[in-house]
């Protein structure tokens, strides 16, 4: 079961023949992911490391029956590649690229509306269902299959949380990096909803950050919809009071976006909070015992 990806996932990589795209696609394949193709305009018809290459995503999907795409295209062109995947009706698009202009992502967000695609990221480590399928740049070996779902805006901090779980022999159902950009494809609530419905997931770790109101909205959603325990950490309590524009999103919503304010709302909504990032594994162990 798990969520989003499993052993039936058929992956294509857009930007397969680039250095990063190639390296991480092979790493994912070594982990067990079924990589069925890649896209690099101009290199269609060639084979890269045993993987057939196509000129367009449309063609790649038609020929391989791919149901997931991983985006490894440089920032100036990444939004175009995401829109190409939406047009090709790829159900799951995972964009690893960091540094896409916000204006481009606003257009992507518009294109996603009413489409058949879900976008994870950009600027994220990807998604992994341990033991079945890895799409992204996370180190596969720190994970183990199990019952804890992980959602995070950060990369290495997610590895830290996963590592703490695995050290305690607590496995993960699926780990999802939703990305650190201000405009992204999938938010905390959408992933929480998937975990709530997934019979394999027994508890969830949610790792947030200062800025924006995604965690606050998620907290309110958890209070009314979530039956499974959630443990949360918000990074940035010690960060200096940001340049004021970092708070623009908060002006609009009227919510405070500091770590302190987010911890408070999470706690009020029944989420178990970890004040220290080193306590995530222990807190999950505690809620699982209850």
């Amino acid at each position, binding site marked *: 079961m798990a969520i989003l990806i499993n052993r039936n996932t058929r992956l294509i990589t857009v930007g397969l023949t680039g250095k990063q795209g190639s390296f991480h696609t092979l790493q994912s394949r070594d982990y067990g992911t079924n990589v069925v193709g890649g896209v690099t305009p101009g290199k269609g018809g060639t084979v890269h490391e045993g993987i057939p290459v196509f000129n367009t995503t449309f063609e790649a999907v038609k020929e391989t029956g791919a149901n997931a795409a991983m985006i490894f295209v440089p920032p*100036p062109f990444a939004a175009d590649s995401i829109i190409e995947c939406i047009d090709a009706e790829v159900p799951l698009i995972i964009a690893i690229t960091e540094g896409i202009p916000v204006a481009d992502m606003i257009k992507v967000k518009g294109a996603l509306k009413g489409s058949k695609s879900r976008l994870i990221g950009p600027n994220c480590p990807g998604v992994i269902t341990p033991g079945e399928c890895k799409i992204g740049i996370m180190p596969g070996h720190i994970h183990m299959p199990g019952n804890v779902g992980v959602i995070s805006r950060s*990369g290495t*901090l997610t*590895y*830290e949380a996963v590592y703490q779980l695995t050290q305690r022999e607590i496995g993960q159902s699926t780990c999802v990096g939703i990305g650190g950009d201000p405009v992204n494809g999938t938010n905390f609530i959408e992933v929480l909803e998937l975990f709530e419905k997934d019979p394999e997931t027994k508890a969830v770790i949610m790792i947030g950050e200062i800025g924006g109101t995604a965690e606050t909205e998620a907290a309110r959603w958890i209070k009314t919809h979530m039956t499974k325990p959630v443990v949360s950490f918000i990074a940035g309590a010690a960060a200096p009071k940001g340049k004021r524009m970092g708070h623009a999103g908060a002006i*609009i919503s009227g919510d405070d976006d500091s770590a302190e304010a987010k911890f408070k709302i999470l706690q009020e909504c029944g989420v178990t909070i970890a004040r220290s990032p080193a306590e995530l594994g222990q807190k999950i162990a505690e809620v699982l015992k209850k």
Partner: protein
Amino acid sequence: MNVHEYQAKELMRQFNIAVLKGGVADTPAEAVEVAKSLAGNVWVVKAQIHAGGRGKGGGVKLARSLEEVEKYAKEILGMQLITHQTGPEGKKVLKVLVEQGCDIDHEYYCGIVLDRSVGKIAMMVSTEGGMEIETVAHNSPEKIIKAHIDPATGFTSAHGRKLGYALGLKGETLKKAMAFFEGLYKLYTEKDCSIAEINPLVTTKSGEVLALDGKLNFDDNALFRHPEIEAMRDVTEESAQELEAGKYGLSYISLDGNIGCLVNGAGLAMATLDILQLFGGTPANFLDVGGGATKETVQKAFSIILQDKNVKAILVNIFGGIMKCDIIANGVVDAAKEMNLSVPLVVRLEGTNVALGKKILSESGLKITPANDLADAAQKAVAAAKGAN
């Protein structure tokens, strides 16, 4: 990226957004020349620094004669201007903007920002011009009127009407305000701004709608397609260390504490500061070496951390995913040897090739305190910094 008010206003003119006539000056004599070239007998002399609150800090003066223009320009140029956004050390003023005076009828607020929760651009206006918008949002949020703009439709007359009527404008003034809003939206989208803020936006006794002040920020990720904006960068406004770090792909922010931090990944770097604070320590910096760090970038990171004389201990916290622990370990050892590192060094390595990384550290002959996990690392770093005091 930030620009000065005079640069923001140059851009606004290009988009037919009404601003006062004015010009920038580096010396008092130049300021007088600018004033002479402008009609009228009242001028405003404004300090050009990347911070708000300039008026309260004494950086904005009304001059009623050319002599006063010269006098105020002399006072302001070279002054260390302190505002609530500059920090206690203030910022040195190198340029002034000299503008025509105008007869203000009413002051308003107008701003454009990204609304992250919906992934759309929002324009906000308020009748509470001249006040900090955060204060208005906190005390009387109902006085902020917003219009979300769908990227498919762009800015429409309907948006303009909603905002203009909300300010109580009518007739010709309303039409001028609508044109102002539309121009600002065009500037925001065409130049990839991340914020546009006009505070105050004013109506004059003669019925004009003008930007009295103007603040623009730009999306760093989009600068590749705006060389004309990149050319406006004022490096004197940016921290030398942060700029240098940026050249090596390092993300560095200086803080007030005494524990230097070297971490990979922004989230883990933030979490490292948090845990240091939880154990009673104070971080000296935020430093993310990124995913593609090499031996050289690690060395550079050390040299930037050590430029801060407050640093009493260094904590290296690496979760090697793509980045391999042995590479980091080699970088740490080389940097420590070459720089004759004298402050205590606590290193926590985890992830890919961790055993090899730990071996390199222990065989280096250097006095490195190894840490087993995140909490252990933070506790040891805090103890080391205290011991050094």
